[in-house]
């Protein structure tokens, strides 16, 4: 294609990326602005809003609950997601399509419908809401993402390495432990990071299954809805920056494997 067309395409791509990042950038800008009204013109630089957020007891408590949710969810989804990814990329079996359909089911069911299904289910079997119910419901909706991330690494891995190990007399457990697992390690790392971030950000399902133990997202949801304030900007910015770091590290792990092979 002629250069002129590529230049136009590049310009267009940058405009859309600008559109994607504009709200986050503006949020960041106003989290540092000294006025408590979020509007132009800018009035001056301050770190007061960050200071407020970091000293807020309620937010700190919510953050602890978020962590108490995120770690178990990460362990559950990484374990199940690794198993599913290996099964999908390394084995041929009947009903594979059905297995795949079941795996992506929680992704395609609207979150709200998934959440109220959990509510009726818990009501019928008589389990009260608490941390375990959030672990399970969040794990279900995060599992498809983690499986895809881990499978993307396994997909690029050369199968002949495992076949060689088995030809040389390794049992399938040995070839898994000594060949597959070390090679998919980066995929597992990437998957667990993604799981951690998604768990932190989850709102809809947590809202319906958390009961009285409220993670940060549920706790600040009503604030986000009704009043906009610079300290909420600062809080949102802290979460965004944290997520950026985790995702960049996770992608670095994932791509390292893909390039090595």
């Amino acid at each position, binding site marked *: *294609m002629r250069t002129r*067309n*590529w230049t136009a*395409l*590049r310009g*267009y*791509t940058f405009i*859309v*990326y600008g559109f994607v*990042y*504009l*709200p*986050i950038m*503006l*949020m960041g800008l*106003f989290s540092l602005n000294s006025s408590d009204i*979020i*509007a132009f*013109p800018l009035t001056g630089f301050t770190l007061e809003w960050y200071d407020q957020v970091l000293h807020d007891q309620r937010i700190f408590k919510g953050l602890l609950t978020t962590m108490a949710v995120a770690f178990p969810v990460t362990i559950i989804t990484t374990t*199940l997601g690794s*198993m*599913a990814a290996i*099964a999908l990329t390394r*084995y041929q*079996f009947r009903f594979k399509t059905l*297995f795949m359909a*079941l*795996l992506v*089911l929680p*992704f*395609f*069911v*609207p*979150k*709200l*419908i*998934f959440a*109220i*299904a959990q*509510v*009726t*289910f818990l009501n019928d079997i008589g389990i009260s809401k608490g941390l375990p119910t959030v672990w399970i419901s969040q794990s*279900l909706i995060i*599992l498809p993402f983690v499986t895809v991330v881990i499978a993307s690494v396994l997909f690029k891995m050369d199968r002949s390495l495992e076949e060689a190990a*088995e030809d040389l007399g390794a*049992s*399938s457990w040995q070839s898994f432990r000594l060949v597959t697992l070390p090679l998919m390690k980066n995929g597992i790392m990437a998957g667990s990071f993604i799981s951690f971030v998604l768990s*932190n*950000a989850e*709102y*809809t399902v947590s809202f319906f299954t958390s009961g009285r133990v409220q993670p940060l*997202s549920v706790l600040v949801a009503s604030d*986000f809805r009704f009043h*906009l304030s610079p300290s909420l900007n600062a809080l*949102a910015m802290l*979460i*965004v920056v944290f*997520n950026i770091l985790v*995702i960049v590290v996770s*992608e670095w792990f994932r791509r390292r494997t893909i390039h090595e092979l």
Partner: protein
Amino acid sequence: MKMVTIERERLRTALLLTTPNLLFITAFCVLPLAVLFSYSFFQVDFVSILREPTLDNYSRIAESATYRGLVAKALLYGLGIASLCALIAYPIAFYIAKRVKVYKAALLTLLLIPLYTGDLIRIFAWRVVLGAEGVLNSLLLWLGIISEPIWVLLFSPFATTVVLTYNYLPFMIFPLWAAIEAMDDSYIEAAMDLGCRHVAVFFKVVLPLSGAGLVAGFLMVFALVVGDYLTPQLMGGSSGVTVTSAIHDMFGAAFDWPTGSALAWILLASMILFVVCVLYAFYRSPWGRGVRRSK
């Protein structure tokens, strides 16, 4: 080891790997959806739920023009936003796949970040931008471009459309990018050498060869938009009544779980019907040739 033993061992491992997932998803996703389905046949009696099966909930919803309209509106929004995302995403996916070399990983990672920050923060950020006393209005006022704040920016179908497109665009760019990345450049070059114009190259080469990516992205965006309940509620104002917010109300203040369950299942069933139709049409169409052959 004998061939048969190896085969049997592989089968056993496959079973071992899939069973925990099957059990987990069946017990905590399929079963709850079945329970929800059973609720759709119950009745509500003041403050308790009467467990005598009846089809009343379904007939009441089918007769109500409001509910029919809400389901239709959800499906139309899904179609509209998915098409809009496809239009916006195609050039970007093409550019990243065929032109970018060094920054490819960076550009793709940049798309992931807003995706993983969560619905709430993304919506909050847009409210900051679009509000009547928000960033965009105050900027335009300050620069003297407008003299009155533009009220329709926030709490309007316009705001809902912008934010829904924004939220789910990455789900369209990724599968399209993957499909175009896998496409052999020589097809495009051959078409150009044979005198195809750009528009013709797109319709005759790029579009048919990236059909699988388009369908995957389209279905994902469709399902996510139909099921989204935060965005219309928080961005749409009075226009933000959707089928999902109606279901939410029945499980909250209205305490009418049976009607809510029936409405949820009607929405789910129409989504499944749509997805199955699209997949079948794709599979039978010339675009699905690649998928058929690989079977």
